């Protein structure tokens, strides 16, 4: 079977949409639904792999509305991997949702279909974000992800999830409106300097970005940065993030943290590439570094004193987003590559962490870490996955995050910001101090509370292990996996300005 890039992209975009329509119509049996879900995701995954094989990292593909270059391909891989993981863990997650307290899904048969429909359309919109060629459409799709994921966050309509969703929608929409303003200014710049053909087309704008008015560009960048920064979860616009991540169903939290926020980073990168030649690196770099490191600094105290396991993970995500934005602000090739790799690793590891956290919530019936002890004895498999994923997210080898963090912080030193690197390392150590304390207390000791037994099944164990191993292997052996390596290099070139 020899498919063109265009056809493959159509497949990627069509399958989730069709499936979500089917599951929203809700006429399939539960088992068929689960299997169809897996089938669709696997199909999309296969299409992405085939796309990766046929696609040359240095030859972007441009359609009328679609644009695919190395950067979007890289994002496609991340989202696709999470999509696969989602599909292969969803059945276990939904089936075990029979606990008395959290057994919301079981009470209404149609909810599974709704959940699938929303989740798949959510992933579909994220695919769109990275595939569209137009800055305006990117804005539209980012806003759409907010709205769809809002319904997912509020899926159980409990009091706390309603509250979280309200904050999520309000804060994010305000932020996104600022980004709209920024986008409008960018369009204004385009109108005044390049005329009105191919409006807001990214490729066209990059090619003509030399003669942009720097004052207006700076103005636009301020709005775009704060706007998309809200969506990324940069402090001080982050307040929605821990709420939304902690109240969403575990699978959604994984998707939110793993792929949604980096989609926002992706769009920010696209905008930066256009505005960079006229604004100059200094301003952008300063903003990114300041807000990135500030985000990590804000996340640390909330991790150190924390009771809710998912909130803790959310703050850990914030730390990682901060690191990514700071890495973006360094503007050296090694940091740019490491940042992209970090997106990948963080997504995979954070998904497995959120999934494990969801499992723990089911097993112990609580999110409060102070009330969970002795997991090592009671639920050894969950404990094992929790330990491994935590160790992975804290940046220890042989897991993937280590490699990306290592090179990202090396970037600080090559970019002549050694003391910022030291500060970042200190903050990361603070993160470890907080997270490890809670996790070790959960794992060890004697438990007072009975757990409802080991809930990790076979398929989800394999999926989670696969995520961890894939992230480890892909990062450790990156220089020997030619396809990925080449892709990453090309993507980093795009991040640093230029069309591959």
């Amino acid at each position, binding site marked *: 079977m020899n498919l063109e890039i265009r056809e493959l992209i159509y497949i990627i975009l069509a399958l989730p949409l069709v499936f979500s329509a089917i599951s929203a119509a809700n006429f399939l049996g539960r088992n068929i639904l689960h299997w169809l879900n897996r089938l669709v995701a696997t199909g999309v995954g296969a299409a992405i792999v085939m796309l990766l094989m046929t696609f040359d990292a240095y030859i972007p593909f441009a359609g009328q509305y679609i644009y695919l270059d190395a950067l979007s391909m890289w994002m496609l891989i991340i989202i696709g991997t999470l999509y696969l993981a989602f599909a292969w863990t969803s059945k276990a997650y939904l089936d075990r949702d029979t606990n008395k307290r959290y057994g919301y899904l079981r009470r209404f048969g149609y909810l599974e279909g709704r959940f699938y429909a929303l989740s798949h359309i959510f992933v579909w919109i994220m695919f769109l974000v990275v595939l569209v060629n*137009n800055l305006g459409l990117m804005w539209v799709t980012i806003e759409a992800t907010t*709205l769809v994921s809002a319904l997912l966050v509020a899926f159980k309509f409990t009091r706390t999830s309603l509250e979280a969703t309200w904050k999520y929608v309000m804060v994010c929409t305000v932020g996104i409106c600022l980004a*709209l*303003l920024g986008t409008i200014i960018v*369009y204004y710049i385009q109108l005044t300097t390049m005329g009105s053909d191919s409006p807001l087309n990214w490729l066209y704008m990059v090619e003509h970005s030399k003669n942009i008015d720097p004052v207006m560009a700076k103005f636009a960048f301020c709005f775009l940065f704060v706007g998309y920064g809200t969506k990324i979860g940069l402090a001080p616009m982050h307040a929605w993030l821990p709420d939304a991540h902690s109240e969403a169903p575990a699978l959604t939290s994984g998707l939110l943290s793993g792929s949604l926020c980096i989609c926002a980073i992706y769009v920010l990168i696209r905008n930066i590439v256009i505005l960079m030649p006229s604004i100059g690196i200094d301003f952008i770099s300063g903003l990114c570094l300041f807000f990135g490191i500030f985000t990590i600094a804000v996340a640390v105290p*909330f991790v150190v004193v924390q009771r809710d396991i998912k909130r803790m993970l959310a703050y850990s995500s914030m730390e990682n987003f901060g690191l990514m934005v700071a890495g973006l602000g360094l503007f050296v090739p090694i940091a740019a590559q490491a940042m992209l790799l970090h997106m990948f690793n963080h997504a995979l590891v954070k998904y497995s962490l959120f999934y494990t956290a969801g499992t723990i919530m089911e097993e112990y019936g609580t999110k409060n870490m102070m009330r969970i002890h002795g997991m090592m004895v009671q639920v050894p498999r969950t404990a094992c996955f929790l330990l491994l994923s935590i160790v992975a997210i804290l940046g220890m080898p042989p897991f993937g995050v280590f490699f990306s963090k290592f090179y990202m912080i090396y970037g600080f030193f090559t970019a002549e910001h050694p003391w910022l690197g030291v500060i970042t390392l200190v903050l990361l150590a603070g993160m470890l101090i907080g997270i490890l304390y809670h996790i070790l207390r959960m794992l060890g000791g004697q438990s007072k509370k009975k757990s409802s037994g080991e809930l990790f099944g076979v398929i989800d164990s394999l999926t989670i292990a696969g995520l961890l191993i894939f992230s480890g292997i892909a990062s450790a052996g990156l220089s020997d996996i030619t396809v990925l390596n080449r892709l990453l290099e090309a993507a980093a070139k795009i991040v640093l300005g230029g069309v591959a």
Partner: protein
Amino acid sequence: MDYLVVFLVLVVFLQTRVTDLKRAVICLASQSVIIAIACFVIGFSHGNDIHAVMPGVLTIIVKVIFIPGAVYRLVKKLKNEREIVSASNVNYSTMAAALFLVMGYALVERLMPGSVGRDIVAASILMIMTGLSLMVLRKRAIIQICGLITLENGIYLLGLLMTEGLPLVVELGVFLDVLIAVVVLVILTSRMRLSFMTTDTSVMKKLKG
């Protein structure tokens, strides 16, 4: 055009004064009507094709008919709920709006002295800032939604003025997003009414730290 600006400013100030939810929605609708007229005015001044009519028509469909309609249906369910806040909050929002109006004019004078659309730019800045102040200062969910739409309207108006309308696809997307946003917010508010027995957002302070 000048009349439009006057009406717009009037409506926005009115909006800061209302506490009754139904009236707030009506204010919102009339504000959108003015925006739609502005759309037509600006559109026809630049050309006669579909792109000139499109924003106005869309504004009427989405922002004049659909959104206020949806919110109004919700408000009808929330019987005898008023915004029970002290008058000081209302006064603050009005004062803030006045401040924003002055600020808007000052900004416009500084940034683009002597430009044609001076008043309307100032009005859109007023709308953006007032929308935000409604969201920050007021506690009712409905009023916050109104604030959000006001903010959106302001940005839209500003964009229209600067760029004579976004590209068509983007324009459609923006309207779709606003539509979905309101639908989501209406769903959330009605759920809020069910589980909290009120639509006062100040009760939602459980998630912290």
